[in-house]
């Protein structure tokens, strides 16, 4: 919990602030260093939400360019990672909406996009594999909510704003997502 707290609210440190200043001044290399420090978290977020490697890369490129464009507006009172996180999450939601529109289906119907293309998790435990598969099998609208709230620490209000649904809907979708994922964790506990 402490780690998550730090990840969500940690303010910019001196070294990061210098990089931000340089990046705000147009230094692409400085911006790339900022991305490098946050890359794994952003990949995890984008992949988990989108469930597809190619789409993850496309969305992250879009999000990073947006972030570079918006960087002059970054006022430094939250961490760069927090700020970037919101941009990536928004870009992923945009992409899911686009997919839904293109296919003339609802977000809820975008089920299991990732099921056939789970990442190579190497020697990951069966539980991680099971959880990855269970997550990939969720409809996108449930996946987004559980990732944003439980994994990333967003409040219901924040998710509501990003996804564009009422907070009550966030709560109900979260409940459904947990109901689907919780048995995987509980099976692990029982096995242990």
């Amino acid at each position: 919990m402490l780690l998550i707290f730090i990840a969500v609210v940690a303010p910019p440190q001196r070294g990061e602030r210098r990089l931000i200043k340089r990046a705000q001044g147009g230094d692409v290399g400085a911006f790339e260093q900022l991305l490098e420090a946050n890359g794994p978290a952003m990949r995890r977020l984008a992949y988990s939400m989108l469930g597809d490697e190619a789409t993850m890369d496309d969305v992250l490129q879009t999000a990073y360019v947006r972030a570079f464009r918006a960087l002059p507006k970054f006022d430094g009172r939250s961490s760069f990672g927090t700020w970037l996180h919101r941009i990536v999450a928004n870009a992923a939601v945009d992409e899911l909406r686009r997919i839904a529109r293109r296919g003339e289906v609802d977000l809820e119907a975008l089920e299991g996009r990732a099921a056939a293309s789970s990442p190579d998790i190497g020697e990951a435990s069966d539980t991680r594999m099971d959880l990855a598969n269970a997550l990939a099998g969720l409809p996108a609208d449930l996946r987004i909510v559980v990732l944003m709230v439980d994994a990333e620490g967003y409040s219901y209000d924040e998710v509501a704003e990003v996804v564009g649904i009422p907070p009550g809907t966030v709560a109900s979708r979260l409940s459904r997502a947990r109901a689907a994922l919780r048995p995987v964790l509980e099976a692990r506990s029982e096995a242990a």
Partner: protein
Amino acid sequence: MTDRDEELGRALRDLPAPPHREGFHAELRARLEDEVASRRTAKRRAWRPRLVPALAGATALAATIVLVLALLPGRVDRGIVNEPAQAAQVVERARAALAGVRSLRATLVVRQRLNEQEPLTTDRLRVALTDRGDLRVLGSAQDGDFYYSARDAREVQLELPYAPGSFVTRGVAPGAPDGLIGDRRLGLQAAAITRALAAARTGTVREETVDGRAAYVLRADIPVNKLGYSGDRLEVVVDRQTGFPLSVRETLQGRLVQGFELDDLRLNPSLPASAFAPDYPADATVVDEGFRTVPFSAAQARVGYTPIAPRALPAGFGRSVTRVATTTPSPTGNEALNPPSRDVVSTAYRRGLDTVIVSTRRTGADPDAWADPIASGEGNLVEPERVRINGGALRGATANLVLDPRVEPHVYVVTDELVVTITGPLTREELLAATASLG
């Protein structure tokens, strides 16, 4: 409200993510370099360093000065005056003073702590502003010297400590959500703390003695930013004799987050337009944000639709300037996530040192893609009050009214054709009246 499953969250965060495809970083670098190049050619997108909050704070205080002057210039009865009628009376009594201020010069002492771990820093800035909209902030150790000339729609930043050279930005919009004017938007967010208090009448005012001087002290609890470092209480100390602020303090559990103090205040000094338009080096980086000053009546020919204007603004506000842009340098909204702005008309209405900005832009293909264009800052989520508009060109549409301590009071309306904003130090009723009078 957040009800978080910590165990599930940990397990989800532990899931692996695939690496990027080959060539991802090279593609990204090429796109970023294109961005930089497009800024430098100044055709589509402006490029300039931003002012850090300390300097933005200067504009904040400048605006706060105006507000406090407006808020508390008259006699206030002893004790707390937090009854709505009394607070409103104080505000209304004060507004007459606002219109009389033509210019201001002062030394501004800015103290701030960027976050919990950082030490308090102090900057002494020489600030000047006029009722034309000019702004000058000199002597910042962090940000060098800054000038904005309303006449020329141009900003000049000289002697920046953190980037070589000087920067000139021309074609600047007159205000939010497009015109940052030295990131004055951020400044206005801070200033809006007091403005919103005035609008919402949520603060208290008490007569106290501060540093041996009779003063009015305005206090209010403010919501803490969920993601960033911010205060939970605001306190504005106003000299009772002069009606000007002695200090503005934002604190978190009693610890200073940021504070402004005003020294050497001079009202209505002579400040010609040239005082805000310095010479700059020939090798300065010059960029263009794309806004051009036009008569309001000529705006339609530039943007292809009939611009709208409020018929009901508080007494004394008059149209100051209209600028138009076919595109703008950065999308609006938090993290700049709104769709690109097209065919923007932005008009400033001024009364003394105060400004109301009315802007319109094309909605584009997806009205649902628009969030509040007047960004309220990272991690500061504001739920607007939704009000059906009962008159004017937008009759029947929904106005999103935002009165929040960290953002300038404003209304935004998204129709199928236009996104409309009204931003300024107005009350709820005044904002709604202005919105219903658009035509």
